[in-house]
């Protein structure tokens, strides 16, 4: 409780104040300690590490140079292609699942809920395995179109769809109910109102989380190796792993890591911008 009593004016003969720090001084001290701890931690790691051996192991320029241009023209390109294919497949399926979850037909809701729970609970690696080896067993006469590309698209897309379905459903539900009512009172059918009024607004809401999903998918493409990729379909992780085995040196991992970051950092930055813009629009 704030006291409304005026503080007594300091009397001439009052005892000298105890040597306590003022509020501002204390705050400055606390912040100073935080900086010190941080610098000490960084210095400890920097001094304790054997930089010479690290550089020898992870930063061999000759090995890094030998990976180019294939690491970009083939491996990075395939990583991007796998990501985009899986994202497109996941988005389409996630969209259908989201609408099923909001359907008035109960079996649709059950099926969609079951799917989402199942695929969110399974490791992506396992799903990829099952698609890569299960589908060919189940349909021996038919092949997944696109070979490894098709398998990765479906294998990673199935999992991504489960996550995206939940995101899109939340987005649709975040559009105020009055929007649908207004559209219906103007004579639009439910379907038209959904397509032209609700979904465009829902997508604006879910663009940041969906972009995040691309970041996750980019990293998940490293699982493609389980399908037995060839020289033409190889992606970043497998490519650098192969070089690592040939040269018995982990430099390729650093190269691969930097190339992943070249994709994911700009995307993360984009997400942050979009979120800021959305926050301002509200």
């Amino acid at each position, binding site marked *: 409780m704030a006291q409304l009593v005026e503080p007594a004016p300091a009397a001439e003969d009052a005892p000298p104040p105890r040597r306590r720090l003022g509020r501002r001084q204390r705050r400055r001290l606390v912040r100073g300690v935080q900086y010190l701890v941080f610098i000490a931690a960084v210095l400890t790691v920097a001094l304790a590490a054997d930089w010479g051996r690290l550089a020898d192991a992870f930063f061999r320029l000759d090995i890094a140079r030998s990976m180019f241009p294939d690491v970009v023209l083939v491996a990075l390109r395939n990583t991007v292609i796998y990501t985009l294919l899986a994202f497109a497949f996941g988005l389409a399926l996630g969209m259908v699942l989201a609408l099923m979850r909001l359907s008035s037909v109960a079996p649709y809701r059950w099926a969609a809920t079951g799917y989402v729970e199942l695929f969110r609970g399974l490791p992506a690696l396992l799903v990829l395995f099952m698609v890569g080896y299960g589908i060919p067993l189940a349909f021996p006469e038919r092949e997944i179109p696109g070979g490894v590309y098709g398998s990765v698209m479906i294998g990673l897309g199935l999992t991504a769809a489960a996550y995206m379905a939940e995101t899109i459903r939340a987005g649709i539900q975040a559009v*105020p109910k*009055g*929007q649908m*009512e*207004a*559209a*219906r*009172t*103007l*004579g*639009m*059918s439910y379907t*038209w109102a959904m397509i*032209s*009024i609700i979904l*465009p*607004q829902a997508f*604006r809401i879910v663009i940041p989380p969906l972009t995040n999903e691309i970041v996750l998918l980019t990293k998940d493409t490293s699982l493609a190796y389980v399908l037995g990729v060839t020289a033409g379909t190889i992606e970043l992780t497998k490519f650098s792993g192969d070089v690592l085995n040939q040269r018995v040196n982990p430099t390729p991992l650093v190269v691969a890591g930097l190339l992943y970051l070249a994709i994911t950092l700009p995307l993360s930055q984009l997400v942050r911008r979009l979120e800021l813009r959305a926050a301002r*629009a509200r």
Partner: protein
Amino acid sequence: MNAISIQGLHKSFGPVEVLRGIDLEVRYGEVVCVIGPSGSGKSTLLRCVNLLEEPSHGSIHVGGVEITDPDCDIDRVRRRIGMVFQQFNLFGHLTVRDNLTIAQRRVLRRSRAEANRVAMENLDRVGLTAKADAYPAQLSGGQQQRAAIARSLAMGPELMLFDEPTSALDPELVGEVLAVMRGLVADGMTMMVVTHEMSFAREVADRVVFMDGGVLVESGPPADVLGAPREARTREFLHRVLEPTRVSEEEIEAHHPA
């Protein structure tokens, strides 16, 4: 034939009966204001007229078509009924112009030029031609509500429903919306208005309907219902609405026993 004809209308939300037997006729060209305390079912009544709420019992005819018939093509009937909401409900991702043209083009199949012409006519009617290319978020509440009225008018409705059109507005913005509505009355539009604006009701309504507890308590010309109410419930409601500073604590306790 009446514009709206409601017979024996009941509506329940689960165990709660919100409307308990409403009979109401609205003639073409008539302006009916529905007043009553919150929770009296007046908004639900209005929303039943274009089937935003599905009635539990009873029948509703709009322009001679029974909309409570399960085989009725409600999208067709709704084209003839304009509706204005408390929260405006403009489409946030579209400009004002597109808000006015989207349903004209998709539902009435008008050409782009035709839809645009009708849109601008109606924006002119509500004094918003300058804001045609603005987005709803860039408009004040009063401007948004006027745009929402224009959006309904662009469909060429035979009657208009207003669900507390000024309740979400800052006090200084109420006037501009009421002015637009007064213009519609002057043009002879059939209107059913749920409102708390008693002076508006007194001035423009042909008939005022007082609702309480899901039934019509009293109905008649505004001078009678607002000026000399017959029912005690009407008198008490008007006393509280028109003279809120005069309501004593005893009166409140008498009607809301603990």
